[in-house]
């Protein structure tokens, strides 16, 4: 059985006819060619398929495409804007927080959801927020460090924005750490 759905994906409206049993992951990958979200287990255990659904992180292998009807989805492809990387993407690069890269999109998406809720997370907050994103390569240390660095940069930018762009000076190490 098929159903027509309309949803916002990375800021663009998409309308498509999908089989009702199709997962959001399969729809994104096969229907929209958004292959950043990966299939690592297809049972919600590895986090490689993490996307934001109305701003909240979900394993897209456990969500049906029809459940996303009328809602908003953000994938790794929609996190930055053209040439401007999201602070998390920059921090993952500068902290050597990537190895094979298969878990990286899901990891960054989970971290983005965390920083939206908690702009200044503790070590424990970061570890808990990423506990559902498995990585077999990195040992996680540089990933956790990258999330803290991105959080610092985002707070610095936010504080500048709050004060009309002319507020208190931003310590350079906070921006680039």
């Amino acid at each position, binding site marked *: 059985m098929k159903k027509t759905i309309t949803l916002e994906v990375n800021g663009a409206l998409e309308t498509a006819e999908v089989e009702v049993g199709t997962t959001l992951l399969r729809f994104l990958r096969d229907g929209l060619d958004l292959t950043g979200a990966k299939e690592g287990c297809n049972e919600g255990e590895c986090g490689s398929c993490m996307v934001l659904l109305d701003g909240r992180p979900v394993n897209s292998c456990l969500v049906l495409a029809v459940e996303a009807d009328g809602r908003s989805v953000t994938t790794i492809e929609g996190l930055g804007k053209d040439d401007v990387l999201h602070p998390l993407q920059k921090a993952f690069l500068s902290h050597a927080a990537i190895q*094979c*890269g*298969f878990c990286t999109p899901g990891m960054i998406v989970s971290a983005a959801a965390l920083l939206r809720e908690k702009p200044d997370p503790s070590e424990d907050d970061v570890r808990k927020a990423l506990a559902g994103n498995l990585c077999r390569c990195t040992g996680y240390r540089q990933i956790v460090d990258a999330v803290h660095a991105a959080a610092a940069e985002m707070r610095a930018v936010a504080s500048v924005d709050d004060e009309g762009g002319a507020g208190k000076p931003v310590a350079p190490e906070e921006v680039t750490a």
Partner: protein
Amino acid sequence: MTAARSVGLDVPRVEGLEKVTGAAQYTADLKFPRLLHVAVVRSPHPHARVLDVKTERAARMPGVRAVVSGRDFPLHTGIYLKDQTVFATDRVRFVGDPVAAVAAETPEVAAEAAALVTVDYDPLPPIFDVEEGFAPGAPLVHPDLGSYEVVPWIQPKAGTNVCNHLKIRKGDYAKALGGAWRVFENVFRVPQVQHVPMEPHVSVARVDLAGKVEVHTSAQSPFTVRHLLSACFGLSHGDVRVHVPYVGGGFGGKAGINLEPIAVALAMRCRGRWMRFMVDRHEEFFATVVRQGLTATLVTGVDRSGKVQAQKMHYLWNCGGYGGYGVNIVRAAGYTCGGAYEFPNVEGDSIGVYTNRPVGSAYRGFGMQEIHWALEQQMDKVALEIGMDPVAFRLLNALGAGKSTVTGQVLDEHAGRVDLCIRRVADEIGMDPGRAKTPYRGKGIACAVKAPAMPNDAASSVVMKFAEDATLEILIAGIDYGQGLMTVVAQFAAEALDIPVETVRVRGCPDTDLSPYDWQTVASRQTWATGNAVLRGAEEIRRKLCDTAGEALGVPASELILRGGAVVHEASGRSLPLARLVMGYQFPDGHAIGGPVAAATSYLPEGLLFLDPATSQSAKPVAKWTFGAQAVEISVDPETGQVTVEKVAACYDVGRVVNPGLIKGQTYGGIVQGIGTGTMEELVLDTRTGRALNASLMDYKIPSTEDVPAVMSVDFVETPQKDGPMGARGIGEHTMIPTPAAIANALCDACGIRISEMPITAEKVWRALRAKENAAKGADAEAAVPSSVTA
């Protein structure tokens, strides 16, 4: 113009942008027109004769395009020992052994059709235990072992389950044991574990209408895949083309050949169509390869000074149903059987045994974590028994310059310094023998050593060429599946040619039609072997650029140097930017010289010698050794038995740190993977049915962020490797070798118990603590009765 330095600096990963944006394409991300989907019929029996395979009903199902089984493809394959066919023909040897396969228009139809294939089996008695498989008269897993093709340096024993046996005989073990002050014998065990790459195995294949085979696959070794596919299907290498896009982790599990033959077999029956074979996470656990199990029996004889005089090592490897790759782990564990120590008198036996478990193959460290689990606990036990500090005992017996390995190779001063690694990690963790003890907190140490385990002629090569704007393009066929090969290749080239690293592009997703040859990405050999090929290529390019520039400037080429992206004549201050030279130089009158600058270079390890077949003595059996050590501090919850690794210190002699951020990543990753196999992981089989009981990420736990030690301290010694690129040697695998043994030794320090069988689970610790308590109570009770006899 300033010099462009890059080796030793934190150059960001060159393919990082692709990976953080989602642009990086892995095999399952590639799009193919009218893709067919593959489902495999697998044996439900651990050991059975295959009497008949009926595929007719499956073939008639609408949407099915091809069905194949063993009778269609009888040729054997295997990288060292050809003991496997594409599909089981007369016999299945583990639960999951492929018997037939289906290609269909949708995954659902493929799965339904696979269920319609009926197979008649005659079950045979299975063997799961390695000692049972090794015992005389055990049922044979491979009755035809004597007829298999095998490379000359692997020694299977026809009429037994032994697929390889490597013997080390050094000095006079029996005499030394007789003269020893004290002798200790212990047995240690390691179960089979799974690699758990985040990307499951996947291969896509097509045979075009002209008969050319094309494969896109998640693999560590495109050329070895091509070589083995050609042999398996009787094709010319020239008619098989293998592409490897980005690979989502491998750790050895994607070395050699894996899913590719099944996809190609189906493609041969359905010309012109692409088909994708992707295992699901469940199959990944038992139907792809796993790490071999080990039972190690060690005997150590020491003299009064604490020097080991006699050492016996008996390693029995549980290879599972096929040993095509695993036989070389058996060999590597043999010639490395003494670990990081000098043992003057050695009796070593490393024996691979077929069983009816999942297939054992390469896993990061290639047998080394397993033997170090045994050896490093044995060293600790012996030290404590004779009243010596485990750190001092290790330093007394450690290998180093002028000392000889178990094969009789005498190490020179370039070989690396395990002694420095031991001292640094012991200092970092605070292992002073007089330290104050806290109940249920302990410290432990373990060493590590590994050499590349590969054929003596395993080669790597590169092609280096320029684009018009002097962007340097480097084609490699080593796979960067996370370890950072593409980045270090760019760094070596940039450093050698004195050009900005940003102007280098490494083409790291090989295509065997276009890329230069590389044996395999295994054995921690790429930075070293491909790195050396790059330096040779850079030298050739430097020479060509200087020849052309010399003619252009009218000065001798020998007076020119490369600096900051230009060829410079220092005496006159004149220079030419590379962009004016890389396509040839044109004089003001219009005539041109030189031409597009490129180089094709290779590296083959030099001077390696076979092992003596009877004693395995050899002056240079391997290209290089990388030594290291780790020390850990742990805490134990006495109520639950849960072990928490609080702090880890790691130190390796890597020759040269090429990229600090990447090498730290390798080390953190290795430590945490070591904590996984050391404390959590085991592929559990039901010993009645041979089926895996924990084949999911829910039941087979690997470390998450919450299992990472609070502190991981990483340090490196840099004793340059003589034949290493800018002194570098391999490190990728070594980082997970000593972790489990160091944890086991810390556990003994914390509460006086020893777990001899990996992993150190809370349950095992809890049981051992209760047993210790009960023994203490028993001893108290016995002590109260003066006449009782106690051991």
